[in-house]
């Protein structure tokens, strides 16, 4: 990827995409509700959530492929609820690429320009430039069925790029690629965004993908945005129990307990162990809470608890070790390959500052 389409400098004071209390229902089924998002010019934002959480519907509403039932959608400060997709000046890359099977690569990329009645010579020039930047020049005459998955994905991206739109929308564009290609394409899209600076809204259910590619992530659950923040905020300071458990691999361990004060500090007894909570959680004695500990925060050799190794899972750069004790189980991540064996007894420690505390009733982080 070498050449860069020319773009005018956007007005950075106005959000590129703004959703105000957007809702969507299909009949009696409410898919999205009260979705509020303000995406800055040039930002790369990901809508992250499981299947059926409303993320693709939200993307489709921004694209103009679905009408919203309630609320307002603004692009560069202009309300666009009633505008068609083409009037919104957005480009979209679809999950299944949605390449036109009867058209060659060149015709696929140039189709949008043809629909805009761009002169043939200009179409050819722009298609050639985009194809060169995406390393597709040698396959311009082929049909989509004659391309590999990665090439098809590049054609889909080329089709979006050739228009030089104000906004890029990506609907799970890598979900049909194998793991290695997915990582490669992810890097290419991120580099592309860094070069072009076009505002991008990306949908995925893959939290690792979202973390690696985004400036900010909106974690969605049951049609609502649970948290909107940078990858670091989402990971280190999840707003809710749901966000904490959705982000991170291996998953955060969540354990229920009742707060007790020992030696003037808030603690939660878990079996024979006692987990000290961070002071700033502001919990009160007798309060029912859930405590969350991420694997990288469980240190072997500490003094919080004594446990038995149940499972050792080497994954290359690290080893995930599952520990059992009478208060539950914990996963710890150790660097490299571990020599631990199932059945061994170890001690583990957890720094109170690394413990996340959630209200058991509301699920909100305390």
């Amino acid at each position: 990827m070498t050449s860069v389409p020319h773009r005018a400098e956007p007005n950075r004071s106005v959000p590129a995409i703004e959703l105000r209390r957007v809702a969507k229902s299909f009949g009696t089924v409410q898919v999205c509700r009260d979705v509020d998002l303000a995406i800055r010019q040039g930002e790369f934002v990901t809508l992250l959530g499981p299947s059926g959480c409303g993320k693709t519907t939200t993307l489709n509403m921004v694209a103009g492929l679905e009408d919203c039932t309630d609320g307002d959608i603004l692009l560069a400060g202009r309300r666009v609820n009633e505008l068609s997709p083409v009037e919104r000046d957005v480009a979209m890359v679809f999950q299944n690429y949605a390449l036109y099977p009867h058209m060659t690569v060149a015709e696929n990329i140039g189709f949008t320009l043809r629909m805009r009645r761009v002169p043939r010579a200009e179409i050819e020039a722009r298609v050639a430039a985009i194809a060169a930047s995406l390393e597709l020049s040698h396959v311009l005459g082929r049909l989509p069925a004659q391309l590999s998955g990665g090439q098809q994905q590049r054609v889909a991206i080329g089709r979006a790029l050739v228009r030089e739109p104000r906004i890029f929308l990506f609907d799970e564009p890598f979900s049909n690629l194998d793991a290695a290609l997915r990582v490669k394409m992810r890097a290419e899209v991120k580099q592309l965004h860094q070069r072009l600076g076009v505002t991008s809204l990306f949908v995925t259910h893959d939290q690792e993908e979202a973390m690696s590619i985004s400036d900010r992530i909106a974690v969605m659950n049951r049609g609502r945005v649970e948290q909107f923040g940078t990858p670091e905020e989402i990971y280190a300071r999840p707003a809710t129990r749901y966000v904490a458990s959705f982000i991170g691999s291996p998953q955060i361990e969540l354990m229920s307990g009742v707060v007790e004060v020992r030696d003037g500090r808030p603690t939660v007894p878990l079996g024979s162990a006692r987990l000290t909570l961070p002071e700033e959680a502001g919990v009160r004695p007798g309060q029912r809470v859930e405590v969350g500990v991420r694997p990288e925060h469980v240190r072997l050799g500490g003094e919080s608890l004594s446990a038995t190794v149940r499972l050792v899972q080497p994954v290359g750069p690290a080893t995930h070790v599952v520990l059992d004790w009478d208060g539950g189980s914990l996963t710890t991540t150790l660097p490299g390959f571990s020599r631990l064996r199932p059945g061994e007894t170890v001690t583990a420690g957890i720094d109170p500052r690394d413990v996340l505390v959630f209200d058991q009733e509301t699920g909100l982080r305390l």
Partner: protein
Amino acid sequence: MSYALYRHGGPGLRLATYAGLALFVVWSAAPVVWLVLSSLLQQKALIARPPDLSPQNLTLDNFIIVVGSAAALGRGILNSLVVALFSTAVALALGAPAAYALARLSVPRADAIAFLVLATQMLPSIAIAIPLFLVISRLGLIDNVLTLGVVYLSFNLPIVIWILRGFFLGIPAGLEKAAAIDGAGVLRTFWHIVLPISIPPLGAAAVFAFVEAWNEFFFALILTRQSAQTVPLVIAAFAGQYQTVFGQMMAAALISVVPVIVLAIVFRDWIVRGFADGMMKG
């Protein structure tokens, strides 16, 4: 029977499959073989009991006579071509957009409308023959090739709509969304995207409509007199009041099915793919 079952079944199952297929081939091919044989036999050999199939009775006379009196058959074939091509072309031109609208656009009660379209085909022909004859004769349109074409169109259109709707229902929604993002409205999406990828079902529907119109006898009989007579009527005319010239009738029939057979062979792949797509995705 699934392919896996067939592959893993024993020799008995395989034998039964071959026997069944052979029976089906004989069942389907026997009338055609008999048609060819009778067109090549002399009348006396043909009406003998049992028919005398010895080689000395084979003759091309039937074909020579039929082609010699070519005026009637030639006009019949021309009329049939006009009627079949007209009703097929118009059925596709009207049926494809109608099917697309019923399959993909937000038409209220599309399923009910599609069913009503099909329901028009459930009336027995005789129930509409008399009113149709009265209307057409009062309009002075009896014995007109285009009249027959329009009547056939009314039969072909619902079938075309149903075949194509089944296919259109299976088109991935992503293609239409991509076209919308690319700046194509409904009509341009239909023209530039949907139609080109629908060539197999369009071909299947076209062949189906053409054959229906080509072979139709009943309405051709009551709505034509002389100049608009189609092939089936010309063939039937070989059955006279006092004598039925079977050999010539069969020779004429054989000549008349040639276009249909050629059509079926040329478009074989489209027909199979078209119907298979419609069935799987519908």
